[in-house]
């Protein structure tokens, strides 16, 4: 992890000097994480994958345009996710209420029982956007609380409150399925 951070910092320095290929490499390292983060906080709606992809594109464009403003290159990840967070919430604000919940797209991964995947997906949908984002950043992206605070620009105590409340809700909703699935 330390070596990876150093390499990212090196790539950022090269990008700042105009080496486009270095930024291309940075994209290839982070694009899947950014895409999945956006996909999960956008929720399973029709067209969510296209939205997540478009937003990912915008995120990396803005990151490139502002790469000189990144004070600490070793904090590239949280900085990048902060941009992604802003992009996602910008989309949320643009969305009309009637566009919400127009349908649920399902993935076709067979690693877990369909029932459990459906239940987890539905349970996530029931969380508030803030709670869902806290879960996504912690459970799926593995950020530290301090990094989450940087991404979401709020205190660690607030982050923990959102996450633990969300986990409590999820625990109750997933308990029946969980015992039949992974439990």
């Amino acid at each position, binding site marked *: 992890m330390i070596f990876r951070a150093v390499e990212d910092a090196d790539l950022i320095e090269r990008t700042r000097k105009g080496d486009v290929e270095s930024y291309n490499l940075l994209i290839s390292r982070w694009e899947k994480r950014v895409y999945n983060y956006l996909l999960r906080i956008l929720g399973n709606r029709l067209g969510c994958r296209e939205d997540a992809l478009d937003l990912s594109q915008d995120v*990396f464009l803005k990151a490139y345009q502002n790469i000189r403003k990144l004070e600490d290159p070793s904090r590239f990840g949280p900085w990048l996710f902060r941009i992604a967070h802003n992009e996602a919430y910008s989309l949320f604000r643009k969305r009309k209420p009637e566009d919400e919940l127009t349908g649920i797209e399902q993935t076709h991964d067979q690693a877990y029982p369909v029932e459990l995947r459906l239940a987890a997906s539905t349970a996530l949908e029931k969380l508030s956007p803030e709670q869902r984002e806290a879960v996504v950043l912690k459970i799926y992206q593995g950020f*530290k*609380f301090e990094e989450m605070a940087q991404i979401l620009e709020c205190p660690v105590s607030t982050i923990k409150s959102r996450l633990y409340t969300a986990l409590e809700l999820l625990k109750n909703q*997933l308990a029946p399925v969980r015992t039949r699935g992974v439990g």
Partner: protein
Amino acid sequence: MNCAPFDLRDYYFEALPSEQHRAVEEHLGRCEECAGELARVRLTSLALTAIPEEEIPRRIAFVSDKVFAPSPVARWWQSLWVSGARMAAASMALLAVAILVHAFRPQTTVVSSLNPPHVVAASVDQAAVEAAVNRAVDKAVSVTEARYDAKLKQIVAENARQKLIIERAAETIDVMDLRGRAALVASNRPPGDGQ
């Protein structure tokens, strides 16, 4: 609720200082209720991972996308500098173009376009040069003509001399021919002929 000395969820997410982490760990060893609560948190997190990460459907465009890419000139310049071979090829191409341009450009046009303030002076100088050239040409022509005249006269004189020699030779031949005929006639005359 549980009776753990510190928040079990902080423990699970490794957000506790090392001492507190150890304290919770020791507590879990002797408290089944807290161990059960921790198991439920872990299983909830595990259940969430049933939603797998997806592969990005299309790679994020950067270099290939015109919106992202630097200008073609900047890209060309950058690629030129990073490749010695390309730099050498470009230098050779530039040299070839320069040679071609130098070979085919009209000299007067270049002089007039490169030195517009000197156009008048150049035309004045050109007239003087032209007069000098004409004088030189006239002189050269006259010298050449004189040399040709002299040569012609020499040739004519030589021809006359050769003609004279040939005429004298012909007269000599005629005289000898007459003498031979006369000798032949005399030899055919009968003895006692008084002629």
